[in-house]
């Protein structure tokens, strides 16, 4: 039996995405007992996850009220916190997973994990250095936070961190029979009454609200989209909202534009899965509802706006799609959004409607406005990656994102199959050779710096005065981690390992650094092999295409 504690101190959507990992763990190991630690204000999401034995909470609001309010002694705050955490500490955990990877969850993991071997993800050592349980933790903590592209999404990374095979099937959410019956009855009624003769009617749910206004689909876009859907015989829109006065007012304002004839479905977290099970397609910005739809395999079109971390936390269902302004023109985090501002390219109702037609009506062409892209989740052996299905893209960014995934597979000696190489060679041709050439130059550069560092390290054995040179060389090598080239990935991992070194003597440190440098050398060579593989694959595919074309034209002549 395995008692596993997953610490997730993030918001509703992030808590829902935990369900993928919970499902995989309990399917692979039915004896596993999973407990989820969340902030109490978000426990309504956690309580809806299947296969979670216990939802444990920290009442952050209570503790903050004690702490921030001058009338209450800070003693109450720290005592309440201690009491709530101590209840958790008193249980015996076989594994503590630092899922949310923020400072609070990391310190809690350090406090709750009672040995060096029972944590997953980063915790702090007694010397307050970040301690990873595996190299996948380093990918999560260092590569995904720093490298400009996203080679792998969070859900897949968690699976690799836990060393558990991802299982797609299974009931990941708790639903209620009464909600299911009610949703089916009501939506079926709409189907029967609104269907036109000889036509198939698709119910399209439109999620109106997110917690951040920059992520919302603009009101005008929703109005025009609803109008288009109503005018088409094959679709019927329903508005989806949470039971709050703000959302009710917004839905009412939209409905007023249609003489109050629209159907609005108000559903809390308990009921919304039942509603989503009965729609044919969900249109949504980046919200918790998107994650719920993903868990119950409802096809979804995500409109990714504002600071939505599309590649890190995008949809996983292969029947879903993600519509976004071109990725090189937009931000993916709040910090970047403040720095860069929003993309100048806007998603219109025409773009959404064209995509709906493609998804539901088998239309073969998608017409998108300038500066937009449509991504599809696809599977490979490492998990889910995103490929551009239509629209514009920045060639270098696109290729770097896909090749960085292949680099990751190579670094972990993971047999990732052929999908990425096929994707790159089928989507791009020799136009990417200049980019690959630059990457090879970066490899050469990094290798030179690495060999220089090794040389100066070996010289410190003979002459301790050479330490300054060695440190200098090492600093130069570590600067490679800040570049946007593929070599940054192994250097980021190397940097993390260096920072975590815990040697008791100078001589021991030197030995460990030397060993890490040789590992890095091997890893950089793997990056080079990856680049070569892509080049060769493109050349081979080009050769095949040319031969095919030649043989076709020979046949014609004959």
């Amino acid at each position, binding site marked *: 039996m395995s008692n596993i504690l997953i610490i997730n101190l993030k918001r509703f959507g992030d808590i829902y995405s935990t369900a993928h990992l919970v499902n995989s763990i309990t399917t692979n190991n039915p004896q596993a007992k999973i407990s989820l630690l969340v902030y109490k204000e978000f426990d309504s999401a956690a309580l809806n996850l299947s296969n979670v034995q216990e939802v444990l909470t920290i009442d952050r609001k209570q503790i*903050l009220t004690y702490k921030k309010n001058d009338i209450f*002694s800070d003693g109450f705050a*720290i005592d309440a916190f201690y009491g709530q955490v101590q209840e958790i500490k008193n249980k015996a955990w076989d594994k503590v997973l630092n899922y949310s990877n923020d*400072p609070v969850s990391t310190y809690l993991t350090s406090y709750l994990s009672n040995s060096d071997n029972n944590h997953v993800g980063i915790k702090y050592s007694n010397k307050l250095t970040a301690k990873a349980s595996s190299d996948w933790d380093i990918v999560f903590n260092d590569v995904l936070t720093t490298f400009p592209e996203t080679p792998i999404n969070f859900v897949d990374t968690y699976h690799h961190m836990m060393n558990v095979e991802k299982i797609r099937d299974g009931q990941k959410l708790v639903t209620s029979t009464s909600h299911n019956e009610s949703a089916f009855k009501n939506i079926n009624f709409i189907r029967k009454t609104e269907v036109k003769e000889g036509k198939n009617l698709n119910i399209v749910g439109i999620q109106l609200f997110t917690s951040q206004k920059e992520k919302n689909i603009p009101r005008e876009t929703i109005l025009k989209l609803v109008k288009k859907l109503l005018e088409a015989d094959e679709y019927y829109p329903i508005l989806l909202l949470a039971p709050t006065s703000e959302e009710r007012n917004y839905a009412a304002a939209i409905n007023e534009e249609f003489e109050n004839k629209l159907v609005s479905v108000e559903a809390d977290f308990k009921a919304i899965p039942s509603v989503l099970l009965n729609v044919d397609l969900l249109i949504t910005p980046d919200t918790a509802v998107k994650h719920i739809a993903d868990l119950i395999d409802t096809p979804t079109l995500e409109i990714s706006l504002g600071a939505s971390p599309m590649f890190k936390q995008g949809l996983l269902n292969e029947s879903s799609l993600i519509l976004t302004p071109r990725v090189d023109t937009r931000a993916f985090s709040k910090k970047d959004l403040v720095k860069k501002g929003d993309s100048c390219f806007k998603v219109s109702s025409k773009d959404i409607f064209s995509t709906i037609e493609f998804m539901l009506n088998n239309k073969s062409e998608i017409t998108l406005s300038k500066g937009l892209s449509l991504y599809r989740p696809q599977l490979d052996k490492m998990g889910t990656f995103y490929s551009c299905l239509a629209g514009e893209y920045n060639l270098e960014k696109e290729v770097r994102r896909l090749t960085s995934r292949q680099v990751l597979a190579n670094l972990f000696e993971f047999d990732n199959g052929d999908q990425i190489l096929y994707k790159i060679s089928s989507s791009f041709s020799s136009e990417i050779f200049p980019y690959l050439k630059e990457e090879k130059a970066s490899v050469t550069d990094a290798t030179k710096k690495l060999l220089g560092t090794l040389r100066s390290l070996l010289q410190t054995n003979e002459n301790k005065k050479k330490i300054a040179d060695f440190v200098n060389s090492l600093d130069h090598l570590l600067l490679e981690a800040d570049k946007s080239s593929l070599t940054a990935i192994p250097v980021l991992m190397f940097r993390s390992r260096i920072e975590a070194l815990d040697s008791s003597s100078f001589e021991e440190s030197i030995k460990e650094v030397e060993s890490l440098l040789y590992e890095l050398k091997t890893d950089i060579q793997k990056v080079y092999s990856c680049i070569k593989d892509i080049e060769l694959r493109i050349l081979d595919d080009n050769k095949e295409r040319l031969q095919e074309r030649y043989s076709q034209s020979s046949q014609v002549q004959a």
Partner: protein
Amino acid sequence: MVHVSPIDVHSYEIKTAKTDFKVPVVNEVHLHSVYNPIKEATTLINKHADVLKAKTDVLIFGLGFGYHVVEAISFLKEHHGDDFRIIVIDPNNDVVNDCLKIHNFDPKNVIIYSGEQIESLYSDVNLVSFLIDKPAVIPHPASFNLYGDYFKSFLTYKAKKQTATICNNIQSEILREYIFTKSEEENLELMIDEQVQTKRHIDNDLDFLMLAFNHMTKDRNETPISGAL
């Protein structure tokens, strides 16, 4: 043990209202109507009807002889059944004791804090956890005016921040001992910043807990998964 009264009382007598109900008179101030204390109590509670319909926790400043508390109980029972709590704060022990000879309040629903110093009230964990749930507040006008300084002190109270003092409000012995050993700091935040955050080596697991607490109470914005730790 000598109990120091938090208020200054120089006279106390009990009179009878026109409707035969008893009325305490403290420092020559009648705490209820000498004509019809029940009607006065009903009027008071009706004035707060909206908030009493919305909330099940009620904080009453001043007990007197409790007629308004009886009315409040009746109102709350009607709207919330048995699911309500009333806490009454009154600085005058003598009046409270006499009130309890007249009324038998169910301790399941009504708790009275009588003759307590302000600091002692704010050290009571049950009262404090009641207060953070934001109860409805009903001042009994006559009591509130008579004991104005007392209730003003209650409403403007500021808890002491010194680490040695906050230990008085910590139930856990282990935690109390841990913080007390670092008690020279001005406050908890400073203690964590100066004595825990600066450590090069963690020698007590509670250090991790302090650091978690510090981040949780300082970082009010949601921290996305970002920034290598």
